[in-house]
Structure formats: structure tokens, C-alpha cells
């Protein structure tokens, strides 16, 4: 009945739809092509390194450009250590903050808390870095040992930096999943806390994973915090108090060198590895998701 009345407008919408679809397809294609092109160029520029004996030179443990050693493995380890420890701290904290705002804490504190978290996203990285150089670094230097510019300093500030990303991604998922469940949960006599722990959170697996991927990407990709706080020594750190250098900070430090040098060329390998790390984390978590089946509202939670 409704179908007959809508036929002409549907045809009109069909043409409009086609244009919209074409536009959206173009937008999607351009984005994908850009990413592919960046990766392609990175590989292209690192080709001179990948051929011959230079690959072994880059994938070694010592960065001593003056004596012809361009090993970037300490930086790979540095990036992974710093990124994962920052996430180890920030992720549980982020999930807890979200739970607090979604029913575990007093309701009147939820809005101010989220407002503060949103405000945190607008603090420029360099401000965190600068403040930490004068507050956190001396604290670590005096409280423990070493120069204070360390893995620990960078990981604490980096955790603070990725916290809002984790909270906001998870928050948007909880907002989506939560309300339709509320009536059912209330009918079952569940408290807000029980509803959150037993229904909303398990149904928000997608958000939990997205928060982890985006948070880790942000942590591994950040340049300024490790550059300003981690000490940048090209070594594998032997404790939380020793200095480390991440791939991002390494690129920032070396990019100003003689562009004809092997040191400069090795940066493209760093770029490729950074790209691969985030890609691996992304794909890895995507796999976990498909193994568990689609979680969320669409499957009604039992898919």
C-alpha cells in the first residue's frame, strides 16, 4: 500500500542515491588510495636499503651513524615497550573511568567527569611535554635515580595522553548500546552497576576493541612526548628509569641530517615498520572480533 505511493519518489531518490553512492565511493577510494600510496612510497624509498647487505645493517642493535651502523632495532623495541606499557596503564584506567561515568559512580559526577575528559583531548601534546619537563622529570630524578628523562616519564604522560581517546571511543559505544537495554534491565531488577557489568560492557566488545586499537595507535604514533621526555638514547632500556628512543622520535631527530646519507635513508625503513606495527595491531584485533562473531546490538547479543 505504501509502496505504490512511494514509487515515483523512490525513482527520483534512486538517481540521487546513485550520485551519492558515487560520491561516497570516490571519497572512500581516495582515502584508501592515499594510504596505499603512502605505504607504496615508503617501501619505494626504503628499497635501496632492502636490497643487498644493507637490510641486515638496518635490522641490527646499534645506531652509530658515524661508524656506519644504522641499526633501528633498539627504536623498534622502544616504540613497542613504551606504547604497550602506556596502554597497560591507560586502558584499564580508561575502562574504569567509563564505568564510573556509566553507572558505577554517582550520576551527578558523570557529566563533569566526561567534560574534563573531553577537555583533555584539546590539550596540545607539546603542553603535556613542556609541563612534564619541569614537573615530572625532576620528580623522577629526585625520587628515584638517573636523569629523569626516562621510559617511566614518557609512559606516564603518554598514558594521560591516550586516556581520553580510550574513554571517548568506549563512551560512544556505551551510549549506543546502553539505552535500549535499560528498560529490560530494569524489568529484570538489575541495578545500574549490574546492568553495566553483565549486559552493556559485554555487548560493547566492538567499542572495547576499537578503543584499544585507537589508543595503541595514538600511543605508538605520538612523537613529541617521547622526544621531550624519554631521553632518546638509542638503546634498549634496562629499567623503567633508563632512557629509550621510539621510532617516531628517531625519525624526528634524524630527519634533519644530510639527506644524501645512509642514516637518512634508514628512516624510510622506520616508517615502514611503524606502519606495519599499527597495521598488525589493527588486523590482530579484527581477527579476534571475527572469531567471537559480531558483537553489539545487531545480533541481539547472542550471535
Amino acid at each position, binding site marked *: 500500500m505504501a509502496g505504490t505511493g512511494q514509487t515515483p519518489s523512490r525513482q527520483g531518490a534512486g538517481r540521487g542515491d546513485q550520485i551519492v553512492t558515487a560520491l561516497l565511493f570516490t571519497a572512500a577510494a581516495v582515502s584508501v588510495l592515499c594510504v596505499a600510496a603512502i605505504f607504496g612510497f615508503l617501501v619505494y624509498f626504503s628499497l635501496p636499503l632492502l636490497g643487498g647487505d644493507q637490510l641486515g645493517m638496518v635490522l641490527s642493535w646499534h645506531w652509530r651513524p658515524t661508524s656506519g651502523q644504522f641499526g633501528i632495532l633498539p627504536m623498534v623495541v622502544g616504540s613497542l615497550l613504551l606504547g604497550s606499557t602506556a596502554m597497560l596503564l591507560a586502558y584499564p584506567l580508561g575502562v574504569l573511568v567509563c564505568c564510573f561515568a556509566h553507572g558505577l559512580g554517582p550520576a551527578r559526577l558523570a557529566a563533569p567527569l566526561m567534560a574534563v575528559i573531553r577537555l583533555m583531548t584539546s590539550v596540545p601534546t607539546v603542553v603535556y611535554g613542556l609541563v612534564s619537563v619541569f614537573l615530572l622529570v*625532576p620528580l623522577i630524578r629526585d625520587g628515584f635515580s638517573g636523569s629523569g628523562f626516562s621510559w617511566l616519564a614518557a609512559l606516564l604522560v603518554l598514558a594521560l595522553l591516550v586516556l581520553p581517546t580510550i574513554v571517548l571511543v568506549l563512551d560512544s559505544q556505551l551510549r549506543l548500546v546502553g539505552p535500549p537495554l535499560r528498560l529490560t534491565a530494569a524489568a529484570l531488577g538489575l541495578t545500574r552497576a549490574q546492568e553495566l557489568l553483565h549486559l552493556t560492557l559485554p555487548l560493547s566488545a566492538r567499542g572495547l576493541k576499537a578503543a584499544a586499537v585507537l589508543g595503541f595507535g595514538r600511543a605508538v604514533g605520538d612523537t613529541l612526548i617521547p622526544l*621531550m621526555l624519554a*631521553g632518546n638514547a638509542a638503546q634498549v632500556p634496562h629499567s623503567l628509569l633508563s632512557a629509550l628512543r621510539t621510532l617516531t622520535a628517531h625519525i624526528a631527530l634524524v*630527519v634533519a*641530517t*644530510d639527506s644524501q646519507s645512509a642514516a637518512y635513508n634508514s628512516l624510510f625503513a622506520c616508517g615502514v615498520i611503524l606502519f606495519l606495527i599499527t597495521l598488525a595491531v589493527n588486523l590482530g584485533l579484527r581477527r579476534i572480533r571475527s572469531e567471537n562473531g559480531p558483537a553489539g546490538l545487531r545480533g541481539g547479543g547472542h550471535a
Partner: protein
Amino acid sequence: MHKVRTGLILSMLTLALVVCAGLAQASDLGVFAGKSGKIDIAGGTAHIPVMKEAAKRIMQTSPAIRITVAGGGSGVGVQKVGEGLVDIGNTGRALSPAEIAKYGLKSFAFAIDGVAVVVHPKNSVANLTHAQVQDIFAGKITNWKAVGGHDAAIHLYTRDEASGTREVFWGIMLKKGKIAESANVVASNGAMKTALAGDADGIGYVSIGHIDATIKAPTLDGVVPDQDNAKSGKYPVTRKLYMNAKGEPKGLVADFIAYIQSPEGAQITSASGYIPTR
């Protein structure tokens, strides 16, 4: 009536002063009169105060000329001028043969800059020998007690490989010797100063022009690292600051380079804490 005359005299005096000032500057700035155009400069961060002051003076006398000054470091300077993105690329080091071959660059030195070992102002060590500095940076001496200071571990600070300051320090002071891998790496002279001003057990090195009350420069084998000693050669750890152009500079760019190397340019250079080469 009386007031009007005083006003008149005052304004004439002011005018005379302005004219005098104008004439005094006209000597080296004269070539820019009536010219117009744009000069883009990028590269070494040590050069920036000199470039900015020169640019200001030129643009004040000849408003039709626009000069932009950016940093980026020596490597960026070479790259940008080589690719034709800027007119002058500054470096705090001589160009490598590969760079000259690839881009066909011409270098113009205008200043000498010394590089000195610096420590926290409260550090009691007043003098270090050349050998001690080498051992400290190689990681062989790890406690200040070994060089007559307090009993505390030495915190090493160095610069990244793109730094012209590091290059001269490593080449002349350390005789191309080892720098311990555990040394903290900072990205600029300013960051080095900030780090050492806060770390009582730290040691690093900066361009002499950057030394002020927030850090202390111990003497090297009894020689005070300052401009006079650097100029006379008594203090050996020095480098030159260069402007680089692609090919033989022409027009405004040639005028600008000549101005930096003129007596007035030399005066700007020494006011910025460096030693003019002329």
C-alpha cells in the same frame, strides 16, 4: 607662541636625528634602496638571530622587500635550498661533497661559533681536561667524584646527528671518539640548556652564544670558553656558520649575503653572540 616655537625646534631636532640615523645605516643598507622582491631563508637554528636582525633592518629601509626566516636545522637548510624551496639555506657545518655534487651549492661563511661543555650552575667542577671530557662522554668516567666534584652519577646529554653543534663537538673535542649510547639526546641548543639548568648532575654542550646564568661552562684545560678565546684560537672547539645558495647568487640574494658579510652585518653577528669571520 613660545610653545609653538619649542614644538617646532623639537620636531626639527627629531627629524635631524631620524635623518642622521638613516645616513648612518645607509652605508651598507644602501644597495637595497628602491629594490623590491622576496628572500626566503631556512636551515641552521644558530643563524636565526643574525638573519632576523638583518631582515628587520633591510625591511625597515626598503618596505618593498620581504624576507622570511625559518629554522629546521642544517640538514633542512641544505635540502630546501637544493630543491629550490628557499633562496638561502643555512648550515652550521661545511657541506658534504655529496651535497655539493647533488645540488651545486655555493657556501658563504660569515661567523665563527665555539662549542663549550656545560654543567649545572651549582656543580663545583671548575675545570675539565680534554681527556676527562672524552672519558666522560665515552662513559668511562661515570661519577663526578672522579673529576673533583660531588659524589653523584654523571648524567650525559648529547645532541642528535643532524646537529652542527654535535658535529664540531664530536669532531674536535672528542676527536671523533665514542659517545655512550646511554646518553640522553636532546633536539636543540635551547633544549640542552633547559635540561642542564634542571639537572644538577648533568653534563652537555652548547654553542658559546647560548651560555648564560642558567648553566655553567667549566674551563677546558684552563681556557675559558668565550668569544675572545675562540677568535684568538686559544679555545679550539669552534665551527663556522654558513649561508648556502644554489649556484652563484644573483640580485637580492647576492645583496643579502654581501650585507651579512659587510661591517654592519659583522656588528649584528657579534651582537648575536658569534664572532664575525671578517
